């Protein structure tokens, strides 16, 4: 029996199973077409003889400034990373702003500057934009939507696809998990000065371009944002002909992030990242990819965290630090701070 609610809950936007139901049963059902039906972060389109990747994302983060970034930097990085996950080279972005009446001009300029700065760093440009202002109280300070287009320049490199994943493939994560989600959580609870880490928000094309330019053995990538690594892995495994096994010992989490997770009662596997990529690599190629990643500051804590298995089809299992085994499931909604 499917769960029905007559109103939108916050959980519908949390990246968990409620959001997946909403996408499948409302958006995909009505907008029905083969490209959307693939439910990938970027749509792959034919333009003449070449393939292009096209994606969009909206940003409503609260607070708008947090340790390691702000809503503007996030809006640029998020869309770049969705293109990168498709294996594309990000080319240009659009930027749409919804501003609340009374929003300080100074804050807006800070946000726009940070967008320009990170766009320059990532070698993309903002090609078009839109501005709307709504009455005070009709939105929360500032919302940003960015869309992006990316190209596949190297024709001899195969397109990334979930269909190519099979048993034996190795899973790589490009660094520590949970930094972004916990930095935002800290800022939201006036703990931004209490923490010793910051959001990992960063454009990943620079890190991954070198690997993508050659046939490196990368089969598939996804950036584990909302819902964290666990949700991304569940999405990959769900309905597939393989299982996924990860090793708790191998998963990189900063002690300070772990500590803050313990305070809120969160599991870092489900906490958002904004500067990490999960890579599915062909067996035998993982060490080479890892070495290249580790040369870049953005990938220096990269680790091989698991593998694709023949067993447990459709499921993600975790081998715990003491050698036990358990299932990793998708969360239904956002993680809530808890005391028990």
């Amino acid at each position, binding site marked *: *029996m499917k*769960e029905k*609610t007559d*109103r*939108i*809950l*916050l*959980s519908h936007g949390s990246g*968990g*199973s*409620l959001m997946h139901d909403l996408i499948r049963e409302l958006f995909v059902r009505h907008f029905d077409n083969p490209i959307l039906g693939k439910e990938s972060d970027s749509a792959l389109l034919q333009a003449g003889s070449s393939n292009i990747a096209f994606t969009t994302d909206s940003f409503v983060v609260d607070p708008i400034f947090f340790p390691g970034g702000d809503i503007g930097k996030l809006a640029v990085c998020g869309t770049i990373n969705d293109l990168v996950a498709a294996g594309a080279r990000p080319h240009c972005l659009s930027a749409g702003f919804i501003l609340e009446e009374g929003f300080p001009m100074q804050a807006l300029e800070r946000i726009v500057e940070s967008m320009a700065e990170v766009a320059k760093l990532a070698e993309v440009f903002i090609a078009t934009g839109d501005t709307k202002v709504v009455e005070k109280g009709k939105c929360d300070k500032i919302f940003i939507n960015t869309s992006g287009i990316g190209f596949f320049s190297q024709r001899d490199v195969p397109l990334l696809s979930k269909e190519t994943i099979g048993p034996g493939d190795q899973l790589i994560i490009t660094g520590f998990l949970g930094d972004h989600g916990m930095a935002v959580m800290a800022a939201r*609870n006036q703990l931004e000065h209490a923490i010793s880490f910051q959001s990992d928000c960063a454009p990943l094309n620079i890190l991954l371009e070198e690997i993508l330019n050659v046939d490196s053995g990368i089969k598939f990538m996804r950036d584990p944002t909302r819902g964290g690594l666990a949700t991304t892995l569940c999405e990959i495994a769900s309905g597939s002909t393989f299982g996924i096994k990860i090793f708790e010992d191998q998963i990189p989490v900063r002690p300070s992030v772990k500590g803050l997770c313990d305070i809120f*009662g969160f599991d870092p596997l489900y906490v958002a990242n904004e500067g990490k990529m999960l890579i599915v690599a062909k067996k035998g190629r993982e060490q080479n990819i890892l070495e290249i990643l580790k040369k870049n500051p953005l990938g220096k804590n990269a680790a091989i965290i698991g593998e694709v298995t023949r067993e447990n089809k459709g*499921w993600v299992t*975790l*081998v*715990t*630090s*003491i*050698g*036990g*085994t*358990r*299932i990793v*499931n998708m*969360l*239904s*909604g956002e993680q*809530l*701070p*808890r*005391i*028990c």
Partner: protein
Amino acid sequence: MNWLEGYRSRELCEALMSEIRQLAAQPLRFMEVCGGHTMAIRKFGIPSLLPETISLLSGPGCPVCVTGRAFIDQAIYLSGLEETVVCTFGDLIRVRGTDASLEKARAEGKQIRIVFSSLDAVELAKKNPEKKIVFLGVGFETTAPGTAAAILKANREGVKNFSVLSAHKLMPPAMEGIISEGIPIDGYICPGHVSTITGTKMYHPIVENFGIGCVVSGFEPLDLLQSILMLVKQVVKRKPKVEIQYSRAVKPEGNPEAQKIMREVFEPADEWWRGLGVLSYSGLKPNRKYREFDTREVFELPDFREIEPNGCLCGEILKGLKTPHQCVLFGKACTPSNPVGACMVSSEGACQTWYTYEGKN
């Protein structure tokens, strides 16, 4: 805190497991009554490591799960009153009352805030003297001293717009209730942080009257395995007793200051437990001296009735008579995003823990 890492050492855990395997020849059933234990046991994959002779059952140890529907209904009613703000721990927000949850009520614009501490609610009351702040007091003996402290602080600082809707519960009446009604068990894995506050005196009647061993356990894998081993040894030697495995955080006498504060502010009251019904003197409410901080005294509350949902096996599951997979609602009509029964409600509930760590099939 590197000294804590030893408690997750694979080698040490393996040594304990091999000892358990050697000794546990006969089938043994142990019950953990603390949701934190339920969660840690599943999270570390401990059942996959234990010999088949040992089964672990989950008791009523999640205060959120056992909180009645009427309590949620009352909280939602209060959140709809003018100038009233309901403060709650995040745990309660998805628990369904008769019709809705606090999460749904919040989506409809009702005044509901998540807090981390009871003192946050007192602060909110101080900053908003025109508003009435209601704190939802849930939890066992571990959490109740914090609620008592908040009442003491509000009283000391003359904060008149703060009150507590208490559903605080006490562990021993439920543990005894389970023994008299539930499945026979060979030992209790006793709640670590509840015992930090209460000490271990309350477990002696269980050993003396029922002959069931009680080991107070910590929450790391090594703690849990060591506690299981201690219980196995008690059964083998036929010497049930009260033992503290979690000695770094639990003293036989407990935390006297916390006990004193609880005694100062609260008095025992009959409480409704989801799945178990009303247990006498199993709850806490502010006593006469602090009645101005008791939401039930301050507000006129309508009478909400407790009704257990049809087909739900929570009562049997809490008593250890059934496992979540034996419930027809489990994973179908009853899921973490739309829980029907108590055990699916909290991340520490028996059903949700099974759903998350073992899968819905």
